[in-house]
């Protein structure tokens, strides 16, 4: 027994797998300790109270480190990124807390990615960009509460939004690789901020076009659609007649064909 044990021990020391395991262990240790260290740094900074001016200074530091490459120092813009003067805190809050910014791959449209900053850092950057020029502000909790008129919101949604985002907000395609994202699961704050800032290729819906009450009604409508099952039955992701037709052609017609085949077949 011990001879076998000794033999297996000797073999595993010589095995090429051992080298891989040692390297993996080393990487995990160094990566893990770095993650722990940075987490410790983040949590420690979050605990200190920040004044408005400190927030702007902190935001400028973060901006220079993460954003200035494309958006220029002082947010004036470069060939790679537009100017941020006048976009307001709402733009920063929307783009960064939905993960779209910092933009990574260039292409027709930037998509949501895992968020890279904490809420405090986002607030700091938003404060800094807001200090560059007057722009839309982050909406208050009352402005985005879903207690408006969902019927009116539905009418406004169908007039202003449904052509790109689909009648129930299931999203839609635009030209050449762009798209209007689905609105299910999007926080009300982001819906408001997107309307008021007009991110990427979405047009701007300022407060003269859709008043804050109009925007609240739209948020109420989207909330209603998301939380209430469709009265007509299974929605098929709300995609409309093509999805429903496909369902009927495959399952409905398939069932009819199977029944017809059974009807004409002789019994065993």
């Amino acid at each position, binding site marked *: 027994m011990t001879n076998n044990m000794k033999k297996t021990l000797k073999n595993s020391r010589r095995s090429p797998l051992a080298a891989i395991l040692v390297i993996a262990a080393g990487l995990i240790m160094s990566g893990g300790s770095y993650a722990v260290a940075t987490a410790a740094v983040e949590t420690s900074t979050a605990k200190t109270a920040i004044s408005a001016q400190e927030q702007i200074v902190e935001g400028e530091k973060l901006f220079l480190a993460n954003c200035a490459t494309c958006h220029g120092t002082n947010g004036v813009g470069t060939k790679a990124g537009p100017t941020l003067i006048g976009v307001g805190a709402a733009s920063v809050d929307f783009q960064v807390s939905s993960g779209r910014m910092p933009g990574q791959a260039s292409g027709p449209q930037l998509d949501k990615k895992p968020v890279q900053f904490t809420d405090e850092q986002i607030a700091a950057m938003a404060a800094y960009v807001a200090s560059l020029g007057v722009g839309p502000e982050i909406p208050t909790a009352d402005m985005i509460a879903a207690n408006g008129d969902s019927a009116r919101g539905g009418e406004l949604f169908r007039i202003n939004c449904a052509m790109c985002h689909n009648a129930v907000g299931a999203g839609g395609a635009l030209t050449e690789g762009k798209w209007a994202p689905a609105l299910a699961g999007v926080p009300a704050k982001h819906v408001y901020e997107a309307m008021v800032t007009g991110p990427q290729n979405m047009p701007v819906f300022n407060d003269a076009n859709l008043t804050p009450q109009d925007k609240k009604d739209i948020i109420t409508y989207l909330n209603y659609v998301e939380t*209430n099952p469709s009265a007509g039955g299974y929605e098929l992701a709300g995609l409309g007649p093509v999805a429903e037709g496909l369902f009927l052609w495959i399952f409905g017609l398939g069932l009819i064909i199977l029944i017809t085949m059974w009807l004409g077949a002789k019994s065993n």
Partner: protein
Amino acid sequence: MSEKAKSAKEHKYEGGLAVVSADKVKDPGLEPHRVRMTDKSDKHERSANRQVAALFLLSAFGSIFSIYAYFAFPITEDLATVRANNLWLGLGITLGLFGIGIGAVHWAKTLMPDAEVSEERHQTRGSEEVRARAIEIIKLADQESGFTRRKLIRRSMYTALALFPLPAIFFFGDLGPNPGDSLRHTMWKKGTRLAKDPDGTPIKASDVTLGSVFHVIPAGLAELHHDKLNEKAKAAVLLVRVNPAELIETEERKGWSYDGIVAYSKICTHVGCPVALYEQQTHHLLCPCHQSTFDLVDGCKVVFGPAARPLPQLPIAVDAEGYLIAQSDFNEPVGPSFWER
């Protein structure tokens, strides 16, 4: 005639003009009879018996269940109750009807006699005697009614029958009214204010900031009672503000925009869908139906898709109070092509 002596089977078949070939396909006869399990084994017959009964009882259950569902899932003020009501009533009725049908078919297939039967296809042509008698009767009818003999009656009857359908041609004219020139004009006139859809509040030029898209109807449309949808379907307009430096304008249209604010008809020139998918950065306008793409800064000319003509532009200006107004109607009919366009 010896027709009476001949039986139907021996009646000579005349192919008429068909080509009768010598080696045509032979009648293969009936396929060999395959004995069913329910005929071979008592156990299978009994189980088929039970299956048919089960299907009928399932139908009975379905019918009773749908009566229960009518009371158990009522439709109330809450719209969501429609879903449950439709589903369970529907399933109950389906089961009720389908159970009877499937049960009957299963009964016939498994338990009823399955001997193959051939149907004889006899000539439909009657015997000479029958045909002669038929001709006799027709001649008698003509004689007794006097149809051939009485020319005045016959000709006046033809006149009455020929004229009878004619009024319908004129009644069908009431399917109109004809569109006349209603496709060439919209509600827009000189001085009509641009208003927001749907409430009809007028729009100030200063409200339209860079990158904004307003969905516009003529002032007064929201209060219309008669023909509101028809007028809206022609007068819908998209109002967009772009950077004036990017705007490419022809000489004659230089005064049609205001400081980068342009207004175009929303009705696609292809089949008439509302074109409102505006992409802010590329300033393209996409129609969702067939993907016609229009370039908003270049007179909405077609850059992709099946549309043949650019979107008509509404000339706009600003009145004394700062509200946007139309300078005139569109310079061409809006929407898809039509024959007289």
